[in-house]
């Protein structure tokens, strides 16, 4: 079916190269959402080891007390902050906030919805995520 309809497919959906920062934010939102869901499920399983008492907990804790474990947790923090920041931007946008006002279109037809407000929202989410990751790194590796 997809073949007949000449759909771009997953490659086209995930290709962030052609349509600016908004499309990159779209992809990052998906990836961080899925990443967080994966982490969340693993996390709930991990914490259940407390039921096995001190031994069980410490066994599992050892996994995150390595350098790789720390890097992984830093990534989770970054994903969480970007997903949250961008999520708030998206919710506002979805409600029609900050997407510009309708007007008589004029050449060269710059789309008002792709405006600096939302671009700033995206860039701030990325910067915030980076800052949070650095803070997390400082805490985890600083000990």
């Amino acid at each position, binding site marked *: 079916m997809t073949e007949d309809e000449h759909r771009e497919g997953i490659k086209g959906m995930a290709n962030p190269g052609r349509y600016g920062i908004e499309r990159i934010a779209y992809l990052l939102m*998906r990836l961080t959402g899925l990443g967080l869901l994966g982490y*969340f499920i693993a996390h709930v399983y991990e914490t*259940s080891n407390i039921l096995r008492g001190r031994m069980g*907990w410490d066994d599992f804790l050892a996994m995150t007390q390595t350098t790789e474990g720390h890097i992984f947790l830093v990534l989770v923090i970054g994903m*969480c902050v970007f997903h949250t920041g961008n999520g708030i931007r998206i919710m506002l946008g979805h409600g029609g906030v900050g997407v510009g006002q309708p007007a008589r279109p004029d050449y060269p037809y710059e789309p008002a919805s792709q405006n600096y407000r939302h671009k700033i929202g995206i860039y701030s989410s990325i910067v915030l995520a980076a800052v949070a990751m650095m*803070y997390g790194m400082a805490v985890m590796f600083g000990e």
Partner: protein
Amino acid sequence: MKESTIMKIHYGTALASVGLVAVHILMRLTTGFADSLSYENVLANYRSVPYVIMLELILILLAVHGFNGLRVILLELKQGRVYEKAVSYGSIVGMIALIGYGSRTIIMTNMGMV
């Protein structure tokens, strides 16, 4: 359920958990990372009723939000009556399973069954 109702829940759960998750993560980063994860500390956390309510809330809110997000992605990936039914029910099962499993940890630990 109407799609708009589902998506309002999606946004609502996200908004509600923003503050809760922030508290949860910042607790580790501000009280000394390794200490906050020590067995005694974690057990003490689980024994504190207000904190445990917060954990349970995060668990429910984000299981709903996360699995609905997964449903959205899967719905857009492929179409078909049977497939879409499977995705919808699958997400609900995933949600319930995760909430059940997490709640088991929370309740048993809180009641001192460790």
